[in-house]
């Protein structure tokens, strides 16, 4: 088994596994209950695409693909930051829009004492 054969089989395996993880991430994006889940799935999709480009660079021998991967990482980071700002500005999530008839007590996670104190302090300030 020569070095080229080894690399061929390794890149083939990587391409198959990365395709599988792309499919799993797309399932999460389709199913994701809130917008934040979908944005997280987009971030993961960009990370997997960077890996895909690196594997293609190994397989074909074009080294310019690495620059494309770096540029894609920059764009993905900026997209995630922009979506986070958008979620912050929009300010609603489907869980908040639920009818208030069901008491939210047992469904919510318990909050620590420090959090309660800080919240009280903050409310008193404003």
């Amino acid at each position, binding site marked *: 088994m020569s*070095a080229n054969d080894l690399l061929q089989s390794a890149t083939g395996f990587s391409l198959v596994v990365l395709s599988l993880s792309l499919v799993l991430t797309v399932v999460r994006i389709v199913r994701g209950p809130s917008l934040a889940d979908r944005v997280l799935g987009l971030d993961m999709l960009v990370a997997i695409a960077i890996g895909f480009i690196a594997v293609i660079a190994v397989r074909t021998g074009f080294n310019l693909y690495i620059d494309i991967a770096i540029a894609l990482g*920059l764009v993905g980071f900026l997209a995630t930051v922009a979506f986070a700002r958008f979620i912050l500005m929009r300010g*609603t999530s489907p869980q908040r829009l639920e009818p208030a008839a069901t008491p939210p007590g047992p469904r919510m996670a318990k909050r620590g004492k420090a959090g309660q104190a800080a919240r009280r302090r903050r409310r008193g300030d404003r």
Partner: protein
Amino acid sequence: MGRESLAVESFAMESLASEPLGMGLAVVVAVLLVLGSLFSLLAAVGLLRFPDLYTRMHAASKAGSVGSGLLLIAAGLHALDGAILLRALAGFFFILLTAPISAHLLAKAAHHAGQRLHPISVTDQMPRERVGPKD
């Protein structure tokens, strides 16, 4: 058009053929490729299986960045060129730098927007700033 694509193809063939890649380096590159793709697969599985946005974020921002970083390092080692290896390392460093920042921003925005933790979570120490109509 035809001649250009032919030229590109012959360039690729030449760069693939003239590569004196040793067996040891090929083994290292292959191991890095397999490890990186498995890390990416584990991140995707965690993204699919974890119950909560905040736990999913762990999988996506840690395992995902390590996976793509390992694949980038494999591509840089495969090139047998210091400049390209340095570029790949810079890309890995950039990913390591930006993944926690984007995850933190997203988690803070989601918490601010009222995304709740899963009931099995133990505590939420961050005070909720803008409360809803009945909270």
